[in-house]
């Protein structure tokens, strides 16, 4: 079980705020809390799925982990160091090991770079291989690994379909031989038949190279298929963290339950589910007191509007941030 392993990556109380300029001249800027205290452990060789609706901070979390944006406070511990505190030059060797694959395969590749140039670029930046012929070999072998071949090497991005472009993006990340890959909605822009191909590619690469994925998606079906563990995010916090099968069989947090009930059914014979959540996600701008779900939650208590529940282990390997499960009686019952 991954629980017994030591984590390859630890995220501790990560916070990221964005300042929003006031619309009035000279007005005070308002603060958007994109991440308000996220803590996660990622174990070696596992896939941690991160799911949530738009604006919940899941992409910001991915970017803060690979240090594309710097968090305001909190720690990301990788290889024994808090990489949030490192300078850009100290970070460079670590960037090689933490790579990212982005959502949109149309805008993440430079249209003026051929496939070869695009995949070669990270090798040049990190001065991995001085010999041009050997570099070409490396590019070719990585291309073959992601299901493309020598005839694709000198083509430009516009000549490829969405699925093929995503394969190139994966190759570009893989060529540096990373240990952790943050995948930010890598299959959301693809059609289902092609999406399945790319998901299978991710799984087989993980087996061959013992990769660790942080897989961000809004599609619970995809997340459940690919992940070992799942973190559910809502408004900048993780509300539930558990094994991928648990999330479907035993969801605890009211938000997780609502999310599950909102997903269109797997078959025509599963209808009649109720949606307990009404309204929309509140704005992440300004300070929020209490549980982020308090305004929409069907099980709201007085406590919820005053204090924010912490992510607490309820069952072994199953953490929830909800007061419903924090009471001593609940723990004794189960």
């Amino acid at each position: 079980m991954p629980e017994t392993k030591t984590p390859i990556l630890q995220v501790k109380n990560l916070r990221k705020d964005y300042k929003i300029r006031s619309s009035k001249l000279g007005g005070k800027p308002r603060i958007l809390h994109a991440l308000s205290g996220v803590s996660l452990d990622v174990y070696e060789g596992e896939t941690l799925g991160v799911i949530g609706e738009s604006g919940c901070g899941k992409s910001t979390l991915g970017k803060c982990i690979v240090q594309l944006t710097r968090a305001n406070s909190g720690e990301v511990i990788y290889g024994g160091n808090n990489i949030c505190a490192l300078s850009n030059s100290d970070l460079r060797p670590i960037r090689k090991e933490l790579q990212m694959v982005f959502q949109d395969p149309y805008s993440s590749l430079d249209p003026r770079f051929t496939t070869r140039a695009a995949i070669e670029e990270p090798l040049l930046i990190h001065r991995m291989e001085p010999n041009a012929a050997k570099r070409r070999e490396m590019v070719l072998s990585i291309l073959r690994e992601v299901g493309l071949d020598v005839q694709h090497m000198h083509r430009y991005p516009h000549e490829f379909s969405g699925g093929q472009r995503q394969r190139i993006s994966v190759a570009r990340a893989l060529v540096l031989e990373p240990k952790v890959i943050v995948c930010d909605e890598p299959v959301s822009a693809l059609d289902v038949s092609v999406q399945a191909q790319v998901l299978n590619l991710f799984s087989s690469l993980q087996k061959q190279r013992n990769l660790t994925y942080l897989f961000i998606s809004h599609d619970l079906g995809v997340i459940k298929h690919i992940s070992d563990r799942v973190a559910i995010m809502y408004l900048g916090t993780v509300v539930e963290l558990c094994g991928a099968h648990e999330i479907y069989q035993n969801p605890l947090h009211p938000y997780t339950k609502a999310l599950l009930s909102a997903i269109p059914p797997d078959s025509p014979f599963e209808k009649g589910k109720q949606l307990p959540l009404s309204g929309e996600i509140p704005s992440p701008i300004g300070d929020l007191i209490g549980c982020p779900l308090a305004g929409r939650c069907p099980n709201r208590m007085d406590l919820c509007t005053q204090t924010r529940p912490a992510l607490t282990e309820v069952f072994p390997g199953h953490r929830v941030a909800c007061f419903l499960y924090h009471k001593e009686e609940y723990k004794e019952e189960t």
Partner: protein
Amino acid sequence: MKDQILQVNDLKTYFFTASGVAKAVDGVSFSMSRGQIMGIVGESGSGKSVTASSLIRLLPKTGKIVEGEIIFDGREIQSLSNRELRKLRGSEISMIFQDPMTSLDPVFKVGEQMVGQIRTHQNITRQEAWNIGAEMLRQVGIPEPEARMNSYPHELSGGMCQRVIIAMAMSCQPKFMIADEPTTALDVTVQAQILSLLKKLRDEKNMSILLITHNLGIVWEMCDAVMVMYGGTTVEHTKMETLYSNPLHPYTWGLLDSVPRLSAEPADELKAIPGQPPDLRLTGGCCAFYNRCPYVREICTKEVPPLVEVEPGHLVACHRQNGKEVLIRGEVNENA
């Protein structure tokens, strides 16, 4: 079919581009009755959106309906003048599009846009139209509709904008609504709200909805009948329950298998369909799916498979699934 509202016969819509003729829709026929929700599923480039746009002749300049007839409520759409068609659009047939944020004009208030739309089709005063607009917003579940009439689109969230679009589409009490991926840009919890709203409107007003989607889950949730499209042609057309319990076309099998399911046991691999969707400039003269089909035979590369009624109400376009021959799912293809 009783109480039929729409009949489409052998519709062909081609796009005349610099690099050749793309057969976006290549011979599609179907009919719909009042109060029915029919789904069109398919991948991007399968012709589902173009089929829908052709119904109200809302095509870009390069696109042209080259053949076929569209009979809506006893009238042939192709023979209508632009003026007559404008009257029809919005009042009898309305359409909602995928991206709610770009469907509204950012420089006009929501109310102004609704009043403009309502007064185009109804001879009433501004104030009356404003009241109708506010009432429609209330019906689609927008809180404080009077205040929202004075909002600009950027002040509303995506889900709220899509509600405004639906309210606008509903304001002239259309008989028929085309919903082109109405929830693709929205989050799942908001998607569920919008879908139940559409269903409520169908139940209350007996409106027919043509729902275009790539999400099979939405089909199971919403539709009475489904048409599966691939490469500009219909490959399977049947009742929704039949498509789930007894799908017959190899592409439908592939589509059903490639979706990761929540209720499924964990599996190592998804059964993906190999290859890429076809280039629409090169289709025609053969089955569009032959180069990705695991059950391909020689005839598939030479002839277009006709749409055959294999069982009552179940149409399939496959050479190996034509009623005489029966193809078994998962069968080993000795001719491959």
